[in-house]
């Protein structure tokens, strides 16, 4: 099955820093990937995020953007831009907690993988080749419809302390705007932007 690796040029970021994003379901070798990360294997320097905590594309892009802006201004709080991306999904300032809650675990099945072209050698093709050979799972599109099947709303609301908000519809209906989902999403974007203030 073909790899659906999307290369995103996020507006406002320099063209030289494209971001490569892949979404996987049913990942079989999470323990291995996590091990590489812990061992500091440079080839496996990715942001590996538990995709059940990702609400939408806008949510993911907001966290990536926050980390990228801090990276460009030399304000990283963690080791590198990839760990910073994981941290940026967290609404609080606790780095260790963010890795524990949002980062890949041995049992993670749904995985969001992000890689930034921090050097010119990192390209869409190089990332694609490495992911094809390293991740055992089903590559799915990085879009809202797919994410809506993956995201665990109650876990997300708990993480962002937004339990009082109404929950989005379980079955998304493309013809109807989901006000509850939008309010939840915008509240999460605000929390990401304000972290550390």
């Amino acid at each position, binding site marked *: 099955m073909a790899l659906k690796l999307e290369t995103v040029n*996020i*507006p*406002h970021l320099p063209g030289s820093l494209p971001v490569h994003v892949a979404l996987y379901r049913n990942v079989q070798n999470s323990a291995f990937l996590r091990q590489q990360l812990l061992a500091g294997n440079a080839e496996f320097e990715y942001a590996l995020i538990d995709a059940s905590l990702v609400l939408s594309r*806008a949510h993911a892009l907001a966290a990536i953007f926050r980390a990228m*802006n801090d990276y460009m*201004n030399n304000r990283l709080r963690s080791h590198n831009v990839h760990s910073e991306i994981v941290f940026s999904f967290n609404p609080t300032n606790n780095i260790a907690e963010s890795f524990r809650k949002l980062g890949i675990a041995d049992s993670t099945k749904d995985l969001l993988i992000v890689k930034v072209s921090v050097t010119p050698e990192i390209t869409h093709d190089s990332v694609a080749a490495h992911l094809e050979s390293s991740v055992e799972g089903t590559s799915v599109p990085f879009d809202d419809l797919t994410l809506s099947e993956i995201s665990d709303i109650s876990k997300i609301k708990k993480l962002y302390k937004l339990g009082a*908000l109404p929950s989005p519809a379980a079955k998304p209906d493309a013809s109807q705007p989901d006000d509850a989902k939008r309010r939840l999403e915008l509240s999460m*974007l605000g929390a990401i*932007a*304000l972290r550390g203030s």
Partner: protein
Amino acid sequence: MADEYKPPALPSPFTNTTPAPTLLVQGAEAHLYKTVSLDPSIPAALKVRPSKPYRHPILDRRLTRQRIIQEARCLVKLVREGVSVPAVLAMDWEGQGGESAWGGAWLMMEWIEGPVVRVVLEQWEAWMKKNAASLDQSQIQKEEDRLRGLMKRIGHTLGGLHKAGVVHGDLTTSNLMLRSPAQETTDSPTGVSMEGEVVLIDFGLAGQSTQDEDRAVDLYVLERAIGSTHPRSEPFFEEVLNGYRASHKGTGSTLKKLEDVRLRGRKRSMIG
């Protein structure tokens, strides 16, 4: 002699943005731009608070940072509470380059498409001034009812704002917008639509408060603003208060306070 006009420099990372953000308003402390959000197909508003070179750099940093965070916190809180305001999409209160090259802070917000209430009222008043004489009683009634409806919705939105524990601090009809509905239609002969959700904007002077005094001053400032800029609409301000009263429980004490504030003016009385 004044130097030739130079548009203000954009902070990082917006020097990368293509097309470049468009400057809409250059206010005293902030510049407002239109740009795109993190999705290039969705517009966004960008508010930049540039550094003020007249201030001591430490003081400048402290104030700029405090204020942009204050504004963002109010907005985020209101979005969470379901009050219609532009949502915060991203921000940076540190500016770029650390201590040495402080470039100011920025706040990226949801773009609200639609007219400001000031323009809606101006257009409506202009039309009425020109044509009221040729309308019959029921037509005038119909127009005034539309205005009453808008005023009531404004009051309702303000009630939600205050209930959420935020005061705006600068309520004018320029800081109220009507979010354009998907299909814009009006059967009014004025051609001025008053439809759409009332959205509060510009929280640059907002703060968190649940005091009747602060809330009453908010209402009073709007009352004065409508009185001075929209004379024909002024008689309908009572509907703002009706909408406010109906928005949530406990507005009675605020409205009572408003009476005091009206008597003494916005400021507490003072000597010499």
